[in-house]
């Protein structure tokens, strides 16, 4: 049986929030492991940090910063959705706009990060 169409904005925002969350969960152990090298093996850490100079890694970092930012702003959006007393008569439209803003802000922040990293 066909599944219902899920191309509406708030469903996509929901899915982006989940996927970015999963992406961050997968990345964080590597991140903490790398940080732990500062205490256990400085030489290995220096080697690992050299690896981050590679252009492909920079592009991957662009993606990571986007995931982090979109999860952060998406999380704020959900806090507003659940905790702010609705004031607008067009509540759903407001939240669709907020979802779009979260993505736009995340894109701006991560692009800025990428441009600085180049």
């Amino acid at each position: 049986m066909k599944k219902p169409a899920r191309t509406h904005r708030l469903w996509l925002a929901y899915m982006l929030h989940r996927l970015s969350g999963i992406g961050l969960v997968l990345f964080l152990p590597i991140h903490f492991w790398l940080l732990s090298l500062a205490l256990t093996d400085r030489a290995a850490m220096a080697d690992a940090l050299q690896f981050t100079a590679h252009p492909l890694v920079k592009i991957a970092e662009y993606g990571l910063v986007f995931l982090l930012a979109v999860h952060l702003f998406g999380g704020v959006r959900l806090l507003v959705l659940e905790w702010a007393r609705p004031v607008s008569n067009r509540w759903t439209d407001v939240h669709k706009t907020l979802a779009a803003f979260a993505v736009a802000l995340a894109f701006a922040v991560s692009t800025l990060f990428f441009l600085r990293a180049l």
Partner: protein
Amino acid sequence: MTSKDDVLSVSVWRQTDDETGTFQQFDVPRQESQTVLDIVSYIQQNLDSTLTYRFACRVGMCGSCAMMVNGEPRWTCRTHVQKAAVDGKLQIAPLRNLPVIKDLVTDMDPFFDKWTKAEGVHHPSATRHDAIVPVDTTTAQRTIANEGIECINCAICYAACDTVSGNGDYLGPAALQRAWTLVNDERDGGHETVLDAVSQNDGCHNCHSMGSCTHYCPNELNPMKAIAGLKRETAKSWLKW
């Protein structure tokens, strides 16, 4: 001689046994302003009288004719074929997230059981011997209550909800919206009872705010907003705020 445009290719879900079924193909003549319910009725009256479906009012009041139309939950009596058909084709199936009794008829018991479980019933705050207290329709709280009262129990939101698909015990958008209406109804004497009922394991805090309930509600109600309200009130009640 009929041209291709005069005939609609319709595939309709037929239940073969308790567990499964298959889509059956029908060609139905097109007519102006035809609704999806008209198509199903045409099939039942002219092509296969064993087709089982449910409807009553045909004008969007009773909430009994909802089905999955081309994969989306819709009230079939108010859905024009012209808008729902894709490339001259329609796929009609029973509502998602509910057990199928036969063909296009789902068992609505789990849906209505959850209304009761969410305490979506009136809790009297006065007796018949008390004077009738007028309800001020202009208060902010009454405005919130009014937002949900046009629900026709069609279960479209319930069929649209992926959280219901993932957790069969989740109370679902319709029952929770009913609960929110009661919490804001000054005549209801069970506000705490309702908040307790909806904050259980399978209650409002399961909602992931996907918004499909609101997106598909044929009466343009906003169950997602109601559930957000319940989340806020139950959390405040827990925090004794």
